[in-house]
C-alpha cells in the first residue's frame, strides 16, 4: 500500500514518518513524498500502479493541489486512486471546488492523525 503525500512543507515527511511509524515498521503502509504538484505528477506517473491513496495539500507554489487533483483525475487508471485534499483553508469555496474535481475527502488542518489513520485503514 503506497501513499503519495504532497506538500510544500518539507517537515511533513518527518511528521508522517513518525505519526505512522508503527504502520511503517509493520510494513502496512509505505509513504512516498512529493514537495510540489509537479513533482507529485511525475511521481504518480512512475508509481501509479502501486499508489492507492494521494494526500495533497492545496496551497502550494506552482501547481496547486486542486490542479494536481484535476490532472490525476484525468488520467484514467483503474481502479482510480483515492485522493484526499488537506488544507489550512476549510472554507466552502475550497471544499466545493475540491469535490467538484472529484476529491474523495477533504481534511482541514490541523490534521487529526487518529482520524486520518482510521480513514486510511478503512480504505486499505
Amino acid at each position, binding site marked *: 500500500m503506497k501513499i503519495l503525500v504532497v506538500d510544500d512543507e518539507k*517537515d511533513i515527511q518527518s*511528521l508522517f514518518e*513518525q505519526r505512522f511509524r508503527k504502520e511503517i515498521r509493520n510494513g502496512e503502509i509505505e509513504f512516498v513524498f512529493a514537495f510540489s504538484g509537479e513533482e507529485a505528477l511525475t511521481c504518480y506517473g512512475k508509481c501509479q500502479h502501486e499508489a492507492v491513496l494521494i494526500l495533497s495539500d492545496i496551497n502550494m507554489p*506552482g501547481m496547486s493541489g486542486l490542479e494536481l487533483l484535476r490532472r490525476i483525475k484525468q488520467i484514467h487508471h483503474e481502479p482510480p486512486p483515492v485522493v484526499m485534499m488537506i488544507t489550512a483553508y476549510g472554507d466552502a469555496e475550497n471544499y466545493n471546488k475540491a469535490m467538484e474535481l472529484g476529491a474523495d475527502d477533504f481534511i482541514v488542518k490541523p490534521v487529526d492523525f487518529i482520524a486520518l489513520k482510521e480513514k486510511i485503514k478503512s480504505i486499505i
Partner: protein
Amino acid sequence: MISRSLIIIFLLTSLIGFAQRQKTIDSITNQLAIAKSDTSRISIMLSLAAQYTYAKPDSALLYVEKAINLIQDKKADKWKPTALRLQGSINREIGNLPLAIELTLHSLRIGQKYNNNREIRRSYNGLGNIYLDLMDYQKSISFFQLSRQVPDITKTEFDEMGLLMNIGNVYTDSNQLDSASYYLNKAFLLFNRSGSGISGIFMYRNLGKLQVKLGNQKQALNYYLKSIEACGQEDYRNLAATNNKIAVLFLTDRQADSCIYYAEKALKYGIKGPFRVMILESSKLLAEAYKSKDDFRKALEYQELMVDTKEKLYGAGNIEAIQAMVYQEQKRNDEIEASKLAYQNRLKQYGYLAGVGLLIIIALFLYRNNKQKNKANTLLQEQKEKAEDALSKLKSTQSQLIQSEKMASLGELTAGIAHEIQNPLNFVNNFSEVSNELIDEMREELAKGTEVSVQLANDIAGDIKKNLEKINHHGKRADAIVKGMLQHSRNSSGVKEPTDINALADEYLRLAYHGLRAKDKDFNATLKTDFDETIGKIDIIPQDIGRVILNLITNAFYAVQEKQKSNNVVYEPVVSVSSKRSDEGVEITVRDNGNGIPQKNLDKIFQPFFTTKPTGQGTGLGLSLSYDIVTKGHGGELSVDSTEGEGTTFKMQIPI
C-alpha cells in the same frame, strides 16, 4: 597791411560770370517787361538787383527799392527777407556798413519769424561778410559758422563751398594759417567738384592770399591772375579787389611802378561802384607806392582820398551808428531772452502747479491703494488662516491615509499571515504530540532493560531531539511572522539598522503569495527568487523598505492575476524577486510577466492617488509612498520598466 584785410567776399549764390551776367540781365529785364503777376515782378526785380550789385550798385539799389515798395503794396511779406538782405549786401559793397548791418539783421529777424531757413542762412553769411569788413574776425567766423549750422534743405554743396571759403579767408586775414589752409583745402575739394567758373574769382583769390602769407609770392600771383581771368570785364567790384591784391604783391617787392599800375587799375574799377572798401585799399596802396617813389604830391592826393574814404566807411558817425545798432540789437536780443525767460518761468510755474496737482492725484491714488491694500491684507490674512487650517487638516488626513495604506496592505496579508502561522503552529503541535508518544515508547523500551531495547530507546531519544529542534524552528518561524506583521503596522522607527534584505524580501514574497492565494483559490504563480548571498546585512529602515518590497510584490501578483483572469490561452504566471550587490549599492528587482503598464500610465504611477484598481481596492498611495521611502528616505532610486503584454520590472537601488 590793413588793405589786405579788407578784401571782401561775396555771397556766392548770387554770382554769375560777366558774359553770362550781361546775358542774364538782358533776359531778366525782358521777363520783367512781360511779367503779369506781382509776385513774379518782385522776384524778377530782386534777381536784377542781385545781378547789378557788382557792376552797377546804384541800379541794384533802385531795383531793390522798387521791389520793396511792391512787397509793401501787395503785402507779399515772404519776399521781405530776400529784399532786405540784398539791400544790406549792396549797401555793404558801397560802404554803408551800419545800414548794411541794420538791413541784414532785419532780414534775419523776419526770416526767423517765418522759419525761412534759406534766408536765415544767407543773412548769417551776409553778417559774416560785413564783420569781416569791420575787421571783427571773431564775430565774422561765428556768423559764418552759424550760417553753416542752419538746417536748410535747399542748401547745396556750392553754398557749403562758399562758406568754407569765407571762413578760410577770415583765418588768412587773422593770420591763423593752419586753420586757413584747412578750410580752404576743404573748399577747394568742393570747388573741383561743383564750383562754377565764377566761384573761381574767390577761390583763386583766397588761395593767392594764403600763398602770400605762406611766402610763396609767385604762386600767389598765378592764383590772382586766374582770379582776374574768372572776373570777366564788368565785375568791377572783384576786378578791383583782385587787382588790389596783385598791387600788394609788388608793394612788398618794392616794385613801385607795377604796384601803382595794378592799384590804379583797381581804383578805376572801384570808383565805378563806388566800392568804397576797394577804393580805400587802392588809395592806401597808391599813397604808399608814390611815397616810396618820393612823389609826395601824388602820395598826398591819394592819402587824402584814403582818409576821405576811411571817414565814410569807419568815420565817427558810422561807428556810433553801428554801436547804436549793435546796442539796439543786443537790447532786442535781451528782450527776447527776457521774454523767453519769462515764458520759461511761466512754464516752470505751470509745470510746478501741474506737478503739485499730479502729486495730489498720486497721493490720493496711493491713499486709495493703501486702503484697498489694507482690505486685501485683512482678507489675505483670513484666507491664510483658512489655508493653514486646511493644510493642517490635509496633513492629518495624509497621515491617516498613509496609515490606511499600511493597513490596507496588511489586510491583503492577513490571510497569508494566517496560513503562514497556521503551518508552523501545526508542526509545533504535531511534533510535540509525537514526541510525547515517543517518550512513552522510550520508557517502555527502557523498562525492558535488554540491550536491544536500550539501543531502541536511544534511537527514540535521537528522534525526540530532532523533533524538539523542529518545534523550535517552527516556533521561531511563527514568531518572525508575527514580529514582521507588527513591524509592518507599527509606525516606522525611522532608524536605519543592519538588515538582511534577502530575508526581508523572501518573507514578504511568501506572505503576499499566500495572501493572494487565500483570497483567490484559482490563482497560482511560479515564484522565482535569485538572492545574492554576498549582500549580508545593510543599513536600511527595515519597516520602510519592507513596505516597498511588499508593495512591489503585491503589485506584481496583481498584474499576473489580472492577466490570468483575462487570458484563455495557456499562461504561466511568474513573479521573480532578485537581489544583486554592485559597486553602487544593492539592487532589488521585482519582475512579473503580467499585462504591463500602458505608456500613458507609466508617467503617473508614482503620483499619489493614482490607481488603476477598481474603486475600493487600492488607495493609490502604495507606489507614491514607496517612491518617497526609496528616494527621500534612503537616497536611492526606484524605477520602472514595462512592456505592454510582456510584463513589468521594478528596480529599487539603495546605496550602501
